[in-house]
C-alpha cells in the first residue's frame, strides 16, 4: 500500500549544462580539447576580421566630403563613404529625373498595399489578389514609371488596374472588419442576401462597370511626364528586370514544362530542346546574344530598345529554369490525382488547371522565391552589357571626376545591400516552406 508516495518529489534543478552560462559554454564550445582549440581559433579569426572591418569602415572612415581628395586628406587608410552617400539617388533610382522620384516610391508603396492582403489571414480571396497583382499592376506601374500620353489601351488598362486595386483594398478591409469578402459584404449591406445568384452577380458586375467608368473619367484627367527607359537605373531597374523576369517566367515555365511532359512527340522534343539549350549556356552569353544578335534577327528598320532585349533574354532564360521547377512540382503530385480527375470526366486542361496545377504550385512557392533571389542576383550581369542597374551605377562612381577611382566602397555597399535583401527573402521562403508543409499533414 505504501507504494503510492503521498508527497511530491521535490523538483531537481536542471543539469548544470542546461542552465548556467559556464555549463552551456562547456557543452557547446569546450567539450573536448579539439573543440576548445577550434573555438579559440575561430574566435581569434572573428576578432581579427571584425576589428579590421570596424577600423576601416568606421574609425578611419570619411562620411562627409566633396571629393575623394578630401577623403584622402582626412585619412588614407579608411573608407570613403562620402562618395557612396553622394550617389545614393543614382544607386537607388538611376538617372530618373529627381523631381519625379515620387513616382517610383509611390509605385512601390502601391505594390506593397496591393500585396498586403496576401499576408492578412482574415482577408478572403487570396488567389484573386495574387492574380490581380500579376494581371493589372504591371500596367499601372508601367504607366506610372514611363509616363507620357496614354494610348487607348493604356487608358483602359490603367482604369482597370485602379478598379482592381480599389476592389482589392475594399476586400481586405471587409475581410479585416467583417471576415467577409467584398462581394458578400456588398450584397448583405444592400439586403440582397436572399436574391438569386444571377441577380446578385448582375448587381456586382454593374457596380464594377460603374466603378470602371468613374476610374476611366478620373484617370483621363491627369497624365505624368514621359521618362525614357534610358533614365531608369539603379536598384529600381534591377527590381523591374527581375520582377518582370519572374512574373513572365512563371507562365512561360508552365507552358514549357507541360510541353516537356506532353504525349505529343513534336511538342515534347521542341520544349525539351528549348529548355536544355537555355539551361546549358551562361546567362551572359544569352545577354550578349540578345544585344548583338536580336537586332540582326529583326526585319530591317525594326529596332527593339535594349531594355526590351534584355528583358526578353532574362524571361526566356528564366522560363527554362522555371520549367524545371514546375516539372519537379508536377512530379511530386501522385498519379492518382490525374486519374481521379479523368474519371470524373475532366479533359487535359481541366485536369491540369483545376486539379494538378494548384497543388503543384503550392509545392513550388519556396522554389519560386528561391528563383527570384537567384534572378535578382543574376540581374547584376546586365551591367556588363551596359545597363545602369545597381551594379552599373556602383561601378560608375569611380569614373565621376570628383570620386575618380573610388570603387571598393561602392562594391561593399552593394554587397551589404544585396545581402540584406536576399537574406530576408531566403529566410521568408524557408518560413513559407515550413508553413506550407505543415498544411500537408492535415
Amino acid at each position, binding site marked *: 500500500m505504501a507504494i503510492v508516495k503521498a508527497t511530491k518529489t521535490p523538483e531537481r534543478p536542471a543539469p548544470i549544462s542546461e542552465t548556467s552560462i559556464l555549463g552551456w559554454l562547456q557543452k557547446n564550445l569546450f567539450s573536448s580539447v579539439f573543440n576548445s582549440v577550434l573555438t579559440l581559433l575561430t574566435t581569434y579569426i572573428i576578432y581579427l576580421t571584425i576589428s579590421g572591418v570596424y577600423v576601416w569602415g568606421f574609425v578611419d572612415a570619411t562620411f562627409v566630403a566633396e571629393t575623394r581628395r578630401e577623403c584622402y586628406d582626412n585619412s588614407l587608410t579608411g573608407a570613403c563613404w562620402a562618395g557612396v552617400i553622394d550617389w545614393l539617388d*543614382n544607386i537607388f533610382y538611376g538617372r530618373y529625373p529627381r523631381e519625379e522620384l515620387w513616382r517610383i516610391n509611390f509605385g512601390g508603396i502601391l505594390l506593397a498595399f496591393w500585396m498586403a492582403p496576401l499576408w492578412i489571414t482574415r482577408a478572403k480571396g487570396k488567389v484573386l489578389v495574387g492574380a490581380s497583382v500579376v494581371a493589372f499592376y504591371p500596367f499601372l506601374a508601367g504607366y506610372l514609371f514611363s509616363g507620357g500620353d496614354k494610348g487607348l489601351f493604356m487608358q483602359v488598362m490603367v482604369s482597370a488596374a485602379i478598379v482592381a486595386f480599389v476592389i482589392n483594398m475594399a476586400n481586405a478591409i471587409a475581410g479585416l472588419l467583417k471576415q467577409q469578402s467584398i462581394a458578400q459584404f456588398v450584397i448583405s449591406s444592400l439586403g440582397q442576401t436572399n436574391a438569386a445568384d444571377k441577380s446578385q452577380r448582375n448587381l456586382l458586375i454593374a457596380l464594377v462597370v460603374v466603378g470602371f467608368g468613374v476610374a476611366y473619367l478620373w484617370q483621363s484627367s491627369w497624365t505624368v511626364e514621359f521618362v525614357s527607359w534610358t533614365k531608369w537605373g539603379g536598384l529600381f531597374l534591377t527590381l523591374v528586370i527581375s520582377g518582370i523576369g519572374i512574373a513572365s517566367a512563371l507562365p512561360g515555365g508552365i507552358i514549357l514544362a507541360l510541353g516537356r511532359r506532353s504525349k505529343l512527340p513534336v511538342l515534347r522534343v521542341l520544349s525539351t530542346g528549348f529548355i536544355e539549350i537555355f539551361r546549358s549556356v551562361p546567362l551572359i552569353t544569352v545577354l550578349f546574344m540578345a544585344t548583338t544578335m536580336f*537586332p540582326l534577327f529583326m526585319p530591317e528598320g525594326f529596332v527593339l*530598345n*535594349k531594355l526590351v532585349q534584355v528583358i526578353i533574354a532574362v524571361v526566356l532564360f528564366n522560363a527554362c529554369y522555371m520549367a524545371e521547377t514546375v516539372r519537379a512540382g508536377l512530379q511530386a503530385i501522385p498519379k492518382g490525382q490525374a486519374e481521379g480527375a479523368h474519371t470524373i470526366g475532366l479533359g487535359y486542361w481541366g485536369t491540369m488547371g483545376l486539379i494538378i496545377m494548384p497543388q503543384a504550385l503550392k509545392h513550388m512557392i519556396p522554389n519560386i522565391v528561391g528563383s527570384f533571389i537567384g534572378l535578382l542576383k543574376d540581374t547584376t550581369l546586365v551591367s556588363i552589357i551596359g545597363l545602369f542597374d545597381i551594379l*552599373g551605377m556602383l561601378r560608375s562612381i569611380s*569614373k565621376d571626376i570628383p570620386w575618380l577611382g573610388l570603387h571598393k566602397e561602392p562594391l561593399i555597399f552593394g554587397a551589404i545591400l544585396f545581402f540584406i535583401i536576399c537574406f530576408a527573402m531566403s529566410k521568408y521562403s524557408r518560413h513559407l516552406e515550413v508553413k506550407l508543409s505543415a498544411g500537408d499533414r492535415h
Partner: protein
Amino acid sequence: MKFHCNLALVAALAAIGASGATTVAAETTLEIVKARGHLRCQVGSPSPGFYNMDSKGDWYGLDVSVCQAVAAAIFGDKNAIEFQSVSSQARFTALANGDSDMLSRTATMTMSRETQLGIDFLPPVFYDGQGFMVRKDSGITTALDLKGASVCVKTGSTTELNLTDFSREHDLNLTPVTFEDYNVRDDTYQNGGCDAVSNDKSSLAGNSASFATPSDHIILPETISKEPLAPAVRQGDSQWHDLVQWSVYALINAEELGITQANVDDMRANSKDPNVLRMLGVEGNLHEGIGLNKDWAYNIIKAVGNYGEIYEKYIGGGEQGLGIDRDDTLNALWSNGGLMYSPPMR
C-alpha cells in the same frame, strides 16, 4: 466546339504574328531622328573626361558634348538626346543596325573597322596615343627599359594589340596583365601588381589624378600608337554623315574664328568677318546641304561652346576636367602646331 475555338484562336495568333512582321519602310536618318524628337547617341560604360555620369545622373564629357552639339544642330536643344550606354562588344553592331544614330565614345578609327563593320568614322575629336606609366622610384625613364616587365592593360581593346606589337618590335618580352576594369587595373598597378600601366596617355594622366600620391608616378615619353578617337555613323546615309561631320567641324571652326559660347550672340549681330557670318547663318545657305535650318551652327556654339572651351572644361583644367594640358599636343589647333583643323565652311 471547344476545339473550334482553340483553332480560331491559334489562327488569330498566327495572323497577328504575321502582320507584326511587316517591315518599316526605310527613311533617311535625319527624318527618323526628327520624327522621334530626339537623337540617340551611343556612349559606353563611363570613361573619365570623355563620357561620365555625375551624382545627379547627368552625362558630361568631351564625347558627350559632341552628341549635344549634333542635337543642338538638329533641334536647337542640346538636351534632345537619349544617351545609350552600350557594351564594347555591341558598340559597332548597335550603330550598324540602326539602334544608335551616332557613336561618340573614344573609339579608335582604324581601317579594318571602317571597312568591315558597316560604319563610317568622322573627323577625330581627340588625338590620343598609347603610352606607359611607371613608378618614379623604379628608375625607368624610357619604354625600352621595360624588358621583361609585366604591364597592366585593359582587355579587348586596341591597347592590347599595340602593346603586343611594341613588345614584338623591340623584343621586350612584355607580359600583359589584362583587366576588364580601369579601377582594378590601377589598384593592381598601385599595389605593385605590374611594373607599368599602358593605356592612352590622356587616360593615364586622368587616372593618375585619382591616385593617393599622383606625383609618385611618371608617364614615359614614348607614344607607341596612334589613337585618333572619332565619332562614327552608320554607312550608307551620306546626308547624315555630312551633318555629323560638319557639326564636329563647326566646333573646331568656331575656335579658329574666335567664336565662343559667351560671344556668339555678339558675333552674329556685329561681326564683319564673312566667315563668321556664313557659319552662323547670317549669310549664304550652307545649312541647305545638310537639311537643317540656318541657325544650326549658332545653336551648336550657343549650347556647348567651341572645341577649345569643351576641351578646357572636361579634359583640361576645368572644374570637371582631367587636368591634361593642351599646348604642344596633337589636340591643339593647327595654328598652334596641333592637328585640329577644320576645312573652310563656305
